[in-house]
């Protein structure tokens, strides 16, 4: 549900409190490689808007100088020793792939996309 009374044209929100539009959801679906029906587009836009509206409470916080926390533990750049170990069996992996040929995953033509 968009805000029909808003006098402002659609633009990127600077805060979490502005409602997402059907145009934005359609664009996001395309980026995520999902195809939506018109009914889904309307329904998902409303539902995503509800979540973003709830998230608007974050705008109340003073986050000046607060460091972002991407993950909880003090580990970084964990490397294993550079020695060969057991790996997955290629035939076993390819046996459950949708299509395989000559030891590779097989896909339809990549070129010729209508984009």
């Amino acid at each position: 549900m968009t805000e029909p009374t808003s006098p402002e044209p659609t633009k990127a929100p600077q805060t979490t409190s502005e409602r997402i539009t059907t145009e934005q959801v359609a664009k996001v679906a395309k980026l995520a490689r999902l195809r939506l029906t018109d009914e889904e587009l309307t329904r998902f836009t409303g539902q995503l808007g509800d979540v973003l509206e709830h998230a608007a409470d974050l705008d109340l916080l003073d986050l000046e100088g607060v460091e972002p926390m991407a993950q909880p533990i003090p580990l970084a750049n964990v490397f294993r020793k550079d020695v060969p170990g057991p790996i997955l069996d290629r035939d076993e992996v390819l046996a459950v792939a949708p299509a395989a040929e000559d030891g590779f995953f097989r896909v339809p033509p990549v070129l010729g996309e209508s984009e």
Partner: protein
Amino acid sequence: MSSAIDIAAAVQSGERSAIEVLEEHLGAISERESEVHAFNLVTTDQAIAAATAVDELVAKGGPLGPLAGVPVAIKDNLCTRGVATTCSSKILEGWVPPYDATVVTRLAAAGAIMVGKTNMDEFAMGSSTENSAFGPTRNPHDLSRVPGGSSGGSAAAVAAGFAPISLGSDTGGSIRQPAALCGVVGVKPTYGTVSRLGLIAFGSSLDQVGPFANSVAEAALVCEVIGGHDPGDSTSLPQAFPAVSEHLSDGVAGMRIGLITEMMGEGIAPDVAKRIRAAAEWLAAAGAEVEEVSVPAVTFGLSAYYLVAPAEASSNLSRYDGVRYGLRVDAPTTGEMMELTRTAGFGDEVKRRIMLGTYALSAGYYDAFYGTALKVRTLIRRDFDAAYERFDALLSPTSPTTAFSFGDKTADPMSMYLNDVCTIATNLAGHPAMSVPYGLGDDGMPVGAQVLAPALGEVAMFRVAAALEGSLS
């Protein structure tokens, strides 16, 4: 049904055979599974083979593991070599993992017998198991109600006596909330203490594997078996799981326990709040210093979580494109094939979260959404740290209500998300928390008390949980 600990002792001593134990549980499954639907797959043949192998080991005089002959149910987002693993999604249709999750390997090495793969919300996104592509699981206490989610099948399997223990995963409460709703114990360990190699990723900075059981002692044992460093998981802490089993009877005398103010007021059903107050009073009577404590930033947890988790999910789930595994919908070009495959393979909730996450991460929005949420994570962690300067453990409800009815919250995703309001902050902080049954609500359905602790504070957490459990027996 016997406990996992009693079963292992009986199998180790030769008093009972693993096959006999397995047959008892397969019997329980065939009796009630058609109405409960805890499993996506019951692995009867593999279980018989594994139980036979344990019995042969017993005949040879061992060595036998601490879970010898104990049936276990495994959430269907944990990879099992040669056994279909679906995440309750159509998009993984036909896929059979070529390797075992580390936790599955460790359970098998301890002598446990996998009896099946449990139903869940698709890709662990949900709080009721209604988002499964294979139909919902029902709460064994009342079949008209949900078991919670996303690990609803694993919780129901233990509650129904299909297996004494099971594994789930918890990204925002997906072990603790179904444990509460099904009246069993559920543990979300500290981030990094249990390997996630072979756990199909949802929110990689939040996901954690943990057990369900009928008792605190059984859950402690499973944590010790599955926990500890795994070189195959780069987020695995280089240390053993805290030795919790040996502290279960330490009691709570002298412990400082805080009742979280923000999780006792608005939005919490009065009958649930009443049980948690009773738990707090009992802990005080048992010698703990119990006080209310405010952890202000947790009220922003839900908002931060529903930006962070979908952002990570949108990235993790980009791998389902019809190329390497599972479903493929044929099309003239690879681009169209990917789009048609994802459109046909994912359910609505997964699509919502992928789109929400894609939006939160997209150019121009990243700072306003994802960036903001990560800063709020820091605030939540700070407020917990401040509370843990004064308290050894914290207490709250696990879920704001007892088990709800099917269809109650499916039309409005936001109302479903509010079920996670007490559990989510723990995942954002990377801390441990567990749910322990603490009596019944006004509707006669189980209420779960949540015990929270600082990172690697599992000993304190299990002590409090064991004391609460003991107060009811």
